[in-house]
């Protein structure tokens, strides 16, 4: 059970948050111009890294804001938390 430092609210228990999977997958601006393979790449393919992973999290039972988090999936160490739209840190 992590303690997550919501960039808007501060430290809260993990039970207040939900994870939205891999971060920085941008929805294509012109989907109609993509091939089936390119669209499938956006829609289905995720890295599922063992190790440092950039993730989207939502403070679902708090401020309801989405933000990004850098977490090591092998030991659950949280390296960084940053707001949507901010540049991902170099880890």
């Amino acid at each position: 059970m992590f303690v997550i430092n919501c960039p808007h609210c501060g430290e809260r228990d993990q039970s207040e948050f939900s994870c939205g999977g891999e971060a920085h997958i941008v929805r294509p601006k012109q989907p109609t111009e993509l091939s089936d393979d390119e669209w499938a790449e956006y829609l289905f393919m995720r890295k599922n890294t063992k190790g440092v992973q950039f993730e989207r999290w939502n403070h679902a039972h708090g401020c309801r804001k989405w933000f990004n988090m850098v977490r090591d999936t092998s030991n659950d160490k949280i390296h960084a938390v940053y707001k949507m739209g901010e540049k991902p840190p170099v880890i």
Partner: protein
Amino acid sequence: MTKYRINKTRFVDQTKTVSFTFDGKKYHGFEGDTLASALLSNGIHLIGRSFKYHRPRGIMSCGSEEPNAICQINDNTDLTEPNVRATEIELYEGLKASSQNCWPSLNFDIGGINNLISPFIPAGFYYKTFMWPKSFWKKIYEPLIRLSAGLGKSPTQPDPDIYDHKHEHCDVLVIGGGISGIISAKIAAKNNLKTILIEDKNILGGSTIYQNNKNFIIDNQKSNEWLMNEISELEKLDNLIIKTRTSLAAFHSYNYLLAKENISDHLPLDKKNGSIRQRLWKIRADKVIVAAGAIERPLIFNNNDRPGIILANSVKKYLDFYGVSTGLNNIIFTNNDSAYETAVSLFEKGISVKIVDIRKKSSSNIVKNAEDLGIKIYWNSTVVNTFGYKKIKSIEIMNLSEDGSNVTGNKHKIQCDCLSISGGWTPMVHMHTQSGGKLDFREIDQVFVPTEKSENHINVGSCNGDFELEEIVKNTNYKVKKFLNINEGGFDKISVLCSKESEKKNIWLLPNSISESKTKSFIDFQNDSTAKDIKLALREGFKSIEHVKRYTTTGMATDQGKLSNMHALGIIADTAGVKMGTLGTTTFRPPFTPLTFGAIVGRSVGKFFDIVRKTSIHEWHVQNNAKFENVGQWKRPWYYPINNENLHEAVQRESKAARDSAGILDASTLGKIDIQGSDASEFLNRVYTNAWSKLGIGKCRYGLMLNEDGMVYDDGVTTRLGENHYLMTTTTGGAANVLSKLEDYLQTEWPELDVYLTSVTDHYTTASICGPNSKKILNKLFPNKDFSDEAFPHMSYQDAIIDKIECRIMRISFTGELSYEINVESKYGKSLWENCIAAGEEYKITPYGTETMHLLRAEKGFIIVGQDTDGTMTPIDLQMDWIVSKKKYDFIGKRSLYRSDTMREDRKQLVGLLTDDPNEILEEGAQIVSELDKKPVEMIGHVTSSYFSPNLNKSIALAVVKGGKKMNGQKLFVPMENKNIKVTVSDFIFFDKENKRINA
């Protein structure tokens, strides 16, 4: 005092007698006893039968590691609990305990026959034997296994006890109240850190608290006396919470820990009443100090499981803590010095004791102490057999060969009534590994010890592999000060004298003169796995410790292998010829000791189990005899039976009334999202499949929402209240998910849009009136309003006032009838409803529930998301092409509608089904086939909605069928258990295809 209560101690109050029963017979113990110590004081060792072979088993330990002495408590009452360890339960007046896993009785057990046929029940027996034939399972194998297997009986009544949860935060949590825990807690608390100390026993002090041996001296006092002073000092500290009877259940990451406190388990029955039984503590600690101690290991030799064979340190605790002697003619069998403390303690109380030691010698103080007292020691010897069925009577020993791999010389028989065994110590590293910590293997004494990596927790004392008193005290002091960044004070100047072990020897499986196949050397006592089973598993090709464990069931019983795991590993390593450190260990999973379900759920039982959402009209529904159905957390009226109507009869009546005159539905549970902002229209364009920019103010439109994969996600009507203001409705069950999905897109993909979303589901109550007379009823309710089709057309909205209360009226329809939805603030909901009922009285307005709503919409072929769709249906599959905009450049899910898979023509598609027999009603979920003879039978679809339509006087159904779009008129079959129902594919709009009634 009984024959075996030979000693007075300060821990058991022998002036306070406590009576209890075991297997129906009454016994006495004292306040401070556990069930185990009380039974032993009455000379009772035999507690139960083993799981597989039904061998007699007795008390083997004095703590949570106990594999054998598990009981059913208070059988045949609502308080009953199975699998309670007699070594952990504190004795109270009126306690009723009984043995488990023996039928018909403890002393005569029919399952004991398994013991005689045991050569035929090797490892994996169940896997190998009960595989086939399949038909034997239900009638032969399962009843047989169920009769003789199983541990205890589950309660059949609801648990009457109260359980509690509590959150706690602290600077330092110390787990374990033995000497190292006490030192740690004192250092932390004295340095202004908010500290919690938890201990699973009823008093602090661990095994030092009864260590009165003269070889263990701290600051010139016997170690138990020194510790007792320390504890009384500790209890005076302000910022320290001491929780006894509290055991750690789980150590999660980020120092989040669960601990279970027993509050009233030890109280007499009459005092338990109304008290909280157990409390689950949810602790978030800045720093954690684990001082969990160590568990004594058994030794693995032939017939090592008889009642009367007990771990040596437990024998010492029964003697020095409880004042109970486990036997009057003792033998101690050991590979280390610690068991000598037990020998000295027995001898000093005048009890006969001899020692068998596998080592050739030991020159430590404690061994010298035993020799000086004249205790007989058989060096370089091992036990090769034991005798006595329900209680040990004698043992046979032999000399060990030079390398310890074999036995030599003659067998020597010794009489005894108790055999204490000690195979050394295993640090309790469970907590450390649960938190994610790693382990190192220490060759010299064959133990896994924690690898210290974490900045947030440390291990001290014997759970860290420090076994000698001096090490424990000095290392704990040093480590804790460093961990907590404390420079001054502590226990730097303490002097400790103790016996130090010089000789170490360990043999995981002791050798025997007879062939291994004829021995029974138990490793896991509770699950009855032997050394032989482990070796068989290895011969059969199992290599991974995790596989061997599951195949032989070693370590998988309720004790989680606290006594067995190390020996299983050792024997695997020896047999496979590999180093033990390379094998790794099995995973230690929480909880460390079993948790009751009550402690897990706490107060969340009965009506507190889940939130119940009720509309403001709920009381009216109850008074009018509504039957309710759960939709998400909502209670929705399902139907309103009159007199003795059943569901079908009520729904037929309600459905007819809604189409013939007027019906009224509580539609308040539909999700409602208020959408505002200058980009609200553009936002709706992006989330719905159809176009929204041109929707006029005051108009309503139906919308379909997809997932990005093109599958239908939700639907509902959205109304444009103003230039930049919309009210979206969603399905009842989907409301929360739709809101969070929309928020996700707004915040992460389209942050440039000026849009604000607010959930207003609970803010409004909605009464939906439909039927040919609905307009007349609305006229009565709102006499000043013009409800003509010109002034108030279908799919539009207007504000209105009723009883000075503002409301919104939407003219929209989910039934196909002329229909109005009136929305008011929820606090006025019930009065609005009652006004509607009063105004509709002359038209016999009929309240209807969800079942009638479903029927009416099915007559019109309107889908219900989640019933006619299942996350694999596109709008094209649903034949709703009309709602998918071709002009819009993009919307959520659009691109996926052009994937090769979603464009397949043989996808399941929505169709109507008519049964050849119009009175035959199909079952929802029933499979559909086109050819009955084809093998294997090919399922081409399934029924999604099915009703008897009173308005058409025939059965109708919606279904999804592969390639169904092109099958209109085709005959298909719905095979049921006893018959094949013939059906014809039809249009899915069954009623009023021309949509005339909506403007009737």
